[in-house]
Structure formats: structure tokens, C-alpha cells
């Protein structure tokens, strides 16, 4: 039994990741987003007769980079093919893509699901192709406007095998690919700008059947939430149809988020007959072992490896490790904090490898990176590279916290002041006089004053109402403007109240 009764959904995703190059796949026109229409086009992009495509080396290197990260086979010999169809935003009448021999084949990716399971998703292929232009149907009466700025932009189409068995699995896989392409620096992952989009092939079959059911393709969904909802809808639609004795028609469908439904696309009935053939303008693409080695030499530690290291070597909880590794810049920030934490923490870090000890400050640094820093970034709509508190500055603050110079509560105030531009942690602590009171004489005086002020509560406490301890702690904190060392205060207070 599955979550869908006697039916099992089977899903494969085709993800289009726009490769983050400066120029297009086959021309020297800019790929920058948001320019005035048609200002980023060259002779090749508008398909003037007699022009020839010359491929962009950086696009190939980024494809290889992705291939290495998913442990795929990088083809030593691959071929660009023409995919023929007529549409006004495709001026050549064909899209240059790869068909029989893609540059990347047979990869795999470990995907962690929300329920804690990890699945391995087989990736059939990833191939290079050019994007089409944009059609604007709204603005002109009886006419369609064409903007070719996007035409020729390099895409990596990443095709999974049909090995995803729920909408949740499909979305978790899509998120993992999204993290990976950004991590590798091959795609900016900006979904609003269409840099990362997805088509989903969905079918259902009886649980007992090995044979795949007839599939439908949901086109161009550009948010994680809509992908999940579109697939959910489509699974339920197909099950309903099959249970009513209907047949599923193989077709392309569009998801309408406003109505939460998919509907067939009109006018594309011949769309799957593309008459592919090798592009005579482009000789075969050769990739040598040296080419692959050169890319390999620049590969970063991958997110899955880093997540594992955070758990195994730093002793972080799984959830913290996964959150830090959702984004390379966040993980780098966290590590920079750890690396600059001075004194004994650094010593401990150095002994990590030899003694297998867990890092004493890793949890503290993780908490602050995922807590205060993240919250402040969200509020200011900044990315972590733009953080107003740098990693070394945070490390200094955490060092003061750990040394007991300030309490956790005061540390948050100091952080806010640092964020507001009042200087580094030491400067804020000094200027605002926030040093924690650890002098037992000063603390004792504050405690005596509070006990003298509240004789009734004192009598109650001594009469057995132990809950009042917190009341006294609060009063002393108030009197010391939060600067009392909490552990010391607790100990002294218990002493006095005996």
C-alpha cells in the first residue's frame, strides 16, 4: 500500500539550469538579465543567414563541473544536434541541443528527505543547449512581441530517471540540485528570473505493476511550492481518471497556480516530433582527460561531504549541519567564524584531526550563524556575503561570550549594536559598559539590596515557595542592567537564601 492506495506515482524531472556565463552559448552577446529588449543579441542570435555558432568554453567547463559533482560519466565525444520546431521566439527554426550523445551521462545524487530518509536519485543525463527568446502576448493587439535577449543563453538540462515516487521526493530532489548548482557556481539558481526551472513527467501505475503508466509532462514550473502542488494535482487527476476507467493521454500540461489545476496545452499536438539530426555547423565536441582533470582541480568540497564532516568531525546535530550546507556561502561563513575564534577554541580545532575530539564551539557558532545572523539578514533582505557583521567580528563576540565577559542575553544586544554599525564587539561592550559583573562583592551587594527591598517575598521563599528564586534572579538582573553573570548570581543567591 502506498499513500495513494493501490497506485504508485512515478515522476521524472527535467531541470533547466541556466549556466552562469557572461556570454551566450554560441555568440558573444551578453546574458545579463533585465536589459532593454533585443539589446543583448548578436548576428548568430537573430539567426542571420551565413552566421556560424562558436561555442563558449565556460559553458562546457560548467557542464563538466556538474557532471563530476554527480559522479557521472563525462563523454569524451559528444554531439550537438538540431531540435527542429517552429516558434517565433526561436529564429533559426531549430534549437541547438544534444540528443544521442550528451556531454554528461549516468550520474547520481543523494537526496535527503524531510522525514530523515536519504534516497539516491539516478540522473540519466545532463546536456548543453541554448535557450529560446521570449514571446510577449499581452501588449500588442493582434500581434505578439518577440524579445531575443534570452535566445542563445546556455542551459544545462538535467534529466533524472523516473525514480521519484511522490511529489515530496521530487521537490526534495529539485532542492538538492538547486543547492548543488549554486554551490558549484554553475548557475545562480534565481527562479524568479527563470535561471532554474523544471518540467515534471508524471505517471501512475498499479502498485503491483512494473510497467510505467502513460505519462504527462507539466511544463515550466518555476517555484518549489508550485512543482509540489502541480505534481500532487496531476497524480490525483490521473488516479481519478484511471479509477473511472478512462485512459491517460500522453500530452503536455500547464499548471495554473491560481486554480490549482493542470490543463492541456493547446496547439502543440505535433510538438514531440522534432526530427533531431547532428548540427552540420558544429563538429563533435571532444573532451580530453586533461580537460576533465583541469575542472576537477577546481572542485569545492561538495555539500553532502561537508554536511557529513560537520556531523562527524564537529559534532553538530544533523539538522544544523543540513541547514548550514543548504548554501555554500552560509557554510563558508560558519567555518570562517570557527577558524577565527581565538584562544582555546582554536587549539581545540587544531587537535581535531589527531584526537577526533568534537569542536567545543561548533554548536555555538552554528547557533549564531543560523539564529541571529540569519534573522538579521532576512530582515534586511541581504545575502550572507553582504552581512553587516563579518565572520571574524562574530567570532570576537562569541569569544567574549565564551570567556564570560558578557552573558548570552547581552551578547544579543551587542550583536544588534554591531549590526547597526557601532563598531566591533569589544568597542560596543566598552562604550556601553556591558561587561558582565562577575565580581562577587558587587554581586553580593546587589543581592543584599534586593532582599532588603522585598521582605515579604523573602519570607514566602523561606516559607517554602521556591518558585520565588526566579523572581529574585530577575530583580538582581534588573538592578545590574542584565550584566550579572548568571551562573555566579544563581550560586550566590542560593547561598544567601539558605
Amino acid at each position, binding site marked *: 500500500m502506498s499513500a495513494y492506495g493501490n497506485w504508485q506515482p512515478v515522476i521524472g524531472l527535467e531541470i533547466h539550469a541556466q549556466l552562469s*556565463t*557572461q*556570454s551566450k552559448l554560441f*555568440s*558573444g*552577446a*551578453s546574458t545579463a538579465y533585465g536589459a*532593454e*529588449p*533585443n*539589446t*543583448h*543579441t*548578436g*548576428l548568430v542570435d*537573430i539567426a542571420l543567414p551565413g552566421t556560424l555558432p*562558436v*561555442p*563558449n*568554453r*565556460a*559553458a*562546457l567547463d560548467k557542464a563538466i563541473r556538474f557532471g563530476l559533482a554527480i559522479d557521472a560519466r563525462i563523454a569524451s565525444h559528444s*554531439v550537438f544536434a538540431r531540435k*527542429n*520546431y*517552429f*516558434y*517565433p521566439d526561436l529564429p533559426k527554426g531549430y534549437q541547438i541541443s544534444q540528443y544521442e*550523445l550528451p556531454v554528461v551521462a549516468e550520474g547520481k545524487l543523494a537526496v535527503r528527505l524531510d522525514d530523515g530518509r536519504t534516497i539516491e536519485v539516478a540522473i540519466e543525463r545532463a546536456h548543453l543547449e541554448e535557450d529560446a527568446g521570449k*514571446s*510577449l*502576448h499581452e*501588449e*500588442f493587439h*493582434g*500581434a*505578439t*512581441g*518577440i*524579445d*531575443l535577449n534570452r535566445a542563445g543563453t546556455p542551459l544545462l538540462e538535467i534529466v533524472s530517471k523516473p525514480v521519484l515516487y511522490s511529489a515530496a521526493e521530487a521537490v526534495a530532489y529539485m532542492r538538492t540540485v538547486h543547492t548543488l548548482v549554486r554551490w558549484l557556481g554553475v548557475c545562480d539558481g534565481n527562479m524568479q528570473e527563470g535561471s532554474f526551472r523544471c518540467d515534471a513527467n508524471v505517471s501512475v501505475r498499479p502498485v503491483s505493476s512494473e510497467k510505467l503508466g502513460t505519462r504527462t509532462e507539466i511544463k515550466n514550473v518555476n517555484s518549489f511550492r508550485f512543482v509540489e502542488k502541480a505534481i500532487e494535482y496531476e497524480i490525483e487527476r490521473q488516479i481519478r481518471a484511471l479509477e473511472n476507467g478512462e485512459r491517460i493521454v500522453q500530452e503536455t500540461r500547464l499548471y495554473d497556480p491560481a486554480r490549482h489545476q493542470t490543463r492541456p*496545452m*493547446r*496547439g502543440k499536438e*505535433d510538438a514531440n*516530433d522534432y*526530427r533531431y539530426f*547532428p548540427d*552540420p555547423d*558544429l*563538429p*563533435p*565536441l*571532444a573532451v580530453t582527460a586533461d580537460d576533465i582533470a583541469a575542472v576537477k582541480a577546481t572542485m569545492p568540497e561538495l555539500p553532502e561531504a561537508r554536511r557529513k564532516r560537520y556531523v562527524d568531525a564537529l559534532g553538530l546535530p544533523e539538522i544544523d549541519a543540513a541547514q548550514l550546507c543548504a548554501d555554500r556561502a552560509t557554510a563558508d561563513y560558519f567555518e570562517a567564524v570557527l577558524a577565527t575564534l581565538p584562544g582555546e577554541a582554536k587549539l581545540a580545532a587544531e587537535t581535531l584531526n589527531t584526537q577526533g575530539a568534537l569542536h567545543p564551539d561548533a554548536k555555538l557558532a552554528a547557533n549564531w550563524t543560523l539564529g541571529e545572523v540569519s534573522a538579521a539578514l532576512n530582515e534586511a533582505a541581504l545575502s550572507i556575503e553582504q552581512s553587516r557583521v563579518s565572520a571574524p567580528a562574530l567570532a570576537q563576540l562569541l569569544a567574549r561570550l565564551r570567556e564570560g565577559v558578557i552573558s548570552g542575553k547581552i551578547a544579543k544586544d551587542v550583536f544588534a549594536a554591531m549590526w547597526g554599525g557601532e563598531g566591533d564587539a569589544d568597542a560596543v561592550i566598552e562604550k556601553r559598559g556591558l561587561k558582565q559583573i562577575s565580581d562577587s562583592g558587587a554581586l553580593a551587594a546587589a543581592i543584599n539590596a534586593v532582599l532588603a527591598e522585598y521582605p515579604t517575598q523573602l519570607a514566602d521563599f523561606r516559607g517554602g515557595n521556591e518558585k520565588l528564586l526566579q523572581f529574585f534572579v530577575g530583580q538582581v538582573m534588573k538592578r545590574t542592567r542584565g550584566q550579572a553573570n548568571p551562573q555566579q548570581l544563581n550560586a550566590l543567591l542560593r547561598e544567601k537564601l539558605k
Partner: protein
Amino acid sequence: MSIDAATVRHIARLARLAVGENELAPIAGELSRVLDLADQLGAAQIDGVEPLAHPHEQTLAWRPDAVTEPDRADAFLALAPDARGGLYLVPKVLE
């Protein structure tokens, strides 16, 4: 190899060519003869020969990733039968 009228109609539609019903049969005959000619290649012995994607023994030349194209939108748009607001205009396309 023989091509029938239905195949000609399908290919004509894919290529957006207007081919009249009375032209289908003659074109099917002509295309069949073209393919029969090419089919003679089938007699060649090709065991152990790699499929050929390109007639020249060369591999791709690459260019570095740099923006080299200036903005020539005005000149390009002037070539089009109709353009407005920086966009090429074509007859309405239904989505």
C-alpha cells in the same frame, strides 16, 4: 524506401509548408526516389565503422567566455517587417 501521402502531409505540417491534397501523391513519389537513391549506401560494408556526425575530421573550436557583441538592436529591428517598442512583432501566437 517508400513514403506515403500521409507522411508527406505530416512532414509538410511540421515544416509549415502549404502542400495541396493533389500534390501529396507526386511529392511522395519524388521523395521516395530520393530516399531510394540514398538507400544505395545501405549496401556498403560498415562493420566496425564509427557513426559519423560530421564529414570533417575536426573537433569543436571554442571561444573564451567574453561579451564581444555590441548593442545593434536598432539595426537588427530595422530588418524586421514590423517592430515596436524594441520588440519584433509577429502575428498573434496563441498560448
